[in-house]
């Protein structure tokens, strides 16, 4: 690993390209740096880290992001050297069981977040829709009982009243949808990692799925 982080001495005040080059030390480009990292056993180390992390529960998005970053780094290196597939296959059992454990923990984390919030995303969405429909109905009733001028005035006032509520609710929902999207992305990456590097190479490895100690709970928390 020596030299990987070595930075060129001298003027670093140059343009972006110069800065990027200096960050790569003696390496010609990023690919060369990655190749050296692989040669020195860096990917093996990353893989061991992935399967060796003693995570008993996911209690924050930080932990999720760590898993995501680790996976992203592994995927990045796998693109450089196809021979690394063999390295993953050698450790297929711990890799698959670890990915399943992470998926299980992510599912449980989702439920925990939902309990803390007191409401599911689907519930908030349904409430928002019901509220909007009720307002529309109310507006229609009001319009029906007013004359033409009153209708215009009434519609403008109603819009003003409802905008505040709508904005707040929409903002809350957007934030939740964004958070949910992040979690879904990690779940998809874990499945894709297992599928691409293990099951696609060795179908027989699918038998490892049966070994997972709490398959029923894992599937339930993930799919519902």
């Amino acid at each position, binding site marked *: 690993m020596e030299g990987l982080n070595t930075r060129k001495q001298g003027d670093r005040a140059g343009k972006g390209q110069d800065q990027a080059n200096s960050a790569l030390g003696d390496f010609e480009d990023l690919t060369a740096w990655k190749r050296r990292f692989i040669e020195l056993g860096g990917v093996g180390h990353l893989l061991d880290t992935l399967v060796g992390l003693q995570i008993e529960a996911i209690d924050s998005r930080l932990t999720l992001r760590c898993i995501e970053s680790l996976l992203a780094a592994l995927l990045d290196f796998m693109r450089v050297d196809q021979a690394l597939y063999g390295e993953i296959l050698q450790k297929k059992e711990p890799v698959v069981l670890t990915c399943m454990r992470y998926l299980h923990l992510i599912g449980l984390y989702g439920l925990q977040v939902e309990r803390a919030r007191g409401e599911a995303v689907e519930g908030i969405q349904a409430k928002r829709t019901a509220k909007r429909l009720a307002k529309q109905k109310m507006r229609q009733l009001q319009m029906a009982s007013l004359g033409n001028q009153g209708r215009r005035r009434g519609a403008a006032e109603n819009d003003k009243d409802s905008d505040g509520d709508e904005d707040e609710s929409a903002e809350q929902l957007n934030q939740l949808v964004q958070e949910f999207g992040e979690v879904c992305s990690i779940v998809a990456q874990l499945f894709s990692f297992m599928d691409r590097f293990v099951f696609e190479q060795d179908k027989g490895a*699918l038998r490892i799925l049966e070994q997972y100690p709490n398959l029923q709970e894992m599937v339930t928390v993930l799919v519902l």
Partner: protein
Amino acid sequence: MLARCSGEPALQPTMTALLQVLLTKVLPEAHNQERRCAEYFEQLQLALEELKASDLAPLEQDLWQLVQGLAADIEARETREVDTKVEDRVLVGMMTVLRVLL
């Protein structure tokens, strides 16, 4: 993953274990998750449609019970669709699974 196991005799036990979880363990739970079961039923439908009849053979007895249970649940389910805007996702899901299984 189910699709990868399909048609592989060596992977039949894995397929059976996964289907057992999805159909006999998770499906009853979906009845209580009206707002979030749509995706489950959709994916289950897609998965079942991809499978071969031989993949389901070891579960024949379980599936027969499941078909009977689904038919009874559909018949006994209270009407929730009060207008065209309300959809009973559990009912729709159960009917879809029943159709695929039959």
